[in-house]
């Protein structure tokens, strides 16, 4: 077997899954997906396509109509002008991450990755023969990646920088000013930025800023997004990657020979998601964001009130409170909370060693469950004092 694969540890999240899945009356704040079901009009479009017998492949890069809509979406929502030829529909944003890494990395190339961050970046870099270079993002800095820390990490072998904002698990975001600063750190280098913007619509203060919209950055940016979070379509496995043609052409080859194309049913459903979205000025997305925002306010207040200091997450749907005060490490905290109070949260260490001292709690769960979960966590924290 390939030693690179053998050496990659399994996702730290899995351990909890096995225990929690068997537990009765367990409230899970461990979920990384919306609690909303895909809106009915979108599901219906998928069903209709099956009834109509549209069960064939699409072109490798995906339905032209859908790519046009994705480009229009980036243009109208985030002010970035991509052409349909600069877009590939992928099997979730996850495939986009893999495509970008495989397209960019030669053996020994370094990739800068903020930490804590999503579990896939490190393994994808390693599988491509690259060397992940984690850069610690701290609560004091709002879990942003600072230009100084990036500058300090750049070496002649640095090939790419991953910018996953809004961030899973911290909820940190990068504003336009932050990204402009970041772009300055990249001047004089050939570093490509892989901007994972899957949580773009879940930004609670101001609107999301796409890295490709920063002056001079378009040519060196690979933008990744998808339908999972904004349209509650996780199980449909549909994302997209957008980049200037020289980069995109190479990714398309990998996609073509490994995936052929993304699910046709999902692509047709996504056409409805965006078409209806434009017709209604994305009312469903706004309603979802409003709902998440209330829950966000609630859980952040709750954590702070119970003495677990919680940075205000301005994006995604996670709270990332510090549990250092309890004296427990992240994994012990999560295991004991699960065993003693039947609440599942994810240890910060699942997102890299610098997640130690934190836990991730998803607030994409009904208020009823959030209230009960917070009550149990509070009981648990008080029992430790």
């Amino acid at each position, binding site marked *: 077997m390939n030693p690179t694969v053998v050496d990659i540890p399994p996702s730290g*999240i*899995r351990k909890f899954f096995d225990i929690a899945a068997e537990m009765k009356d367990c409230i899970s704040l*461990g*979920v990384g997906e919306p609690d909303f079901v895909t809106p009915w009009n979108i599901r219906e479009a998928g069903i209709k396509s099956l009834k109509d017998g549209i069960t064939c492949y699409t072109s490798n890069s995906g339905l032209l109509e859908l790519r046009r809509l994705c480009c229009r979406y980036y243009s109208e929502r985030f002010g970035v002008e991509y052409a349909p030829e600069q877009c590939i529909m992928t099997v979730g944003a996850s495939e986009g991450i893999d495509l970008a890494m495989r397209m960019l990395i030669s053996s020994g190339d370094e990739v800068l990755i903020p930490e804590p961050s999503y579990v896939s970046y490190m393994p994808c870099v390693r599988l491509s023969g690259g060397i992940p270079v984690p850069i610690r993002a701290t609560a004091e800095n709002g879990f942003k990646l600072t230009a100084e820390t990036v500058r300090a990490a750049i070496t002649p072998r640095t090939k790419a920088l991953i910018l996953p904002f809004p961030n899973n698990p911290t909820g940190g975001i990068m504003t336009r000013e932050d990204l402009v600063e970041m772009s300055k750190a990249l001047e004089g280098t050939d570093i490509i930025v892989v901007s994972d913007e899957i949580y773009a619509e879940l930004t609670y203060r101001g609107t999301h800023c796409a890295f490709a919209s920063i002056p001079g950055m378009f040519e060196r940016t690979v933008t990744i997004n998808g339908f999972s979070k904004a349209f509650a379509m996780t199980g449909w496995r549909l994302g997209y990657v957008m980049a200037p043609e020289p980069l995109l052409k190479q990714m398309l080859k990998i996609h073509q020979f490994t995936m052929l194309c993304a699910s046709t049913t999902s692509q047709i459903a996504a056409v409805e998601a965006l078409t209806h979205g434009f017709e209604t000025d994305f009312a469903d997305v706004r309603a979802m964001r409003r709902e998440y925002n209330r829950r966000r306010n609630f859980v952040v207040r709750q954590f702070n009130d119970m003495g677990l200091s919680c940075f205000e997450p301005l994006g995604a749907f996670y709270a990332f409170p510090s549990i250092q005060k309890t004296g427990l490490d992240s994994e012990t905290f999560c295991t004991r909370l699960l065993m003693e109070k039947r609440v599942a949260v*994810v240890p910060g260490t699942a997102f890299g060693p610098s997640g130690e001292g934190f836990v991730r709690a998803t607030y994409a769960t009904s*208020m*009823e469950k959030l209230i009960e979960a917070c009550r149990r966590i509070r009981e648990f924290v008080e029992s430790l004092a």
Partner: protein
Amino acid sequence: MERSFAMEILDILAQDSRTPAAIIAQMLNTSEEAVKAEIKRLEDEKILLRYTTIIDEEKTESESTIHALIEVKVTPQYRQGYDAIAEQISRYPEVRACYLMSGSYDFMVLVDGPNLRSVSQFVTEKLAVLNGVVSTGTHFVLRKYKDNHVVMPNGRDDYRQVVTP
């Protein structure tokens, strides 16, 4: 588009009217006092009228309730239009709702009763004979599949795995 404080509160209560003011305050990042004061204002001004329940009647032990939708055609009255007759219809305790409609009839009247006979009696003896009522058409509800956004029977609605990245 920012929504007003009142609309935010009404929206939360529409989903769960038992949500305590303290929780609403945390959801909206404000104080409990502010929420309580606003709810009181909404009640005082008769904007927030009642906190009620949604029940799956098929699962209750009590005698079944019959629901009927009745189309009513009327002759609008001089100077009062539809208001006078609407008020009269609305006064009956059997009437759960009374709406003025566009289309081929004037009122949609929702009536509840313990059995078919009582509802029929109400229509023939009370509603149809009202001054101004031209005709009625009664539709009995056979089964409720969805009421107030709640699909019945209310089964499993969360198919997510317990822990995902």
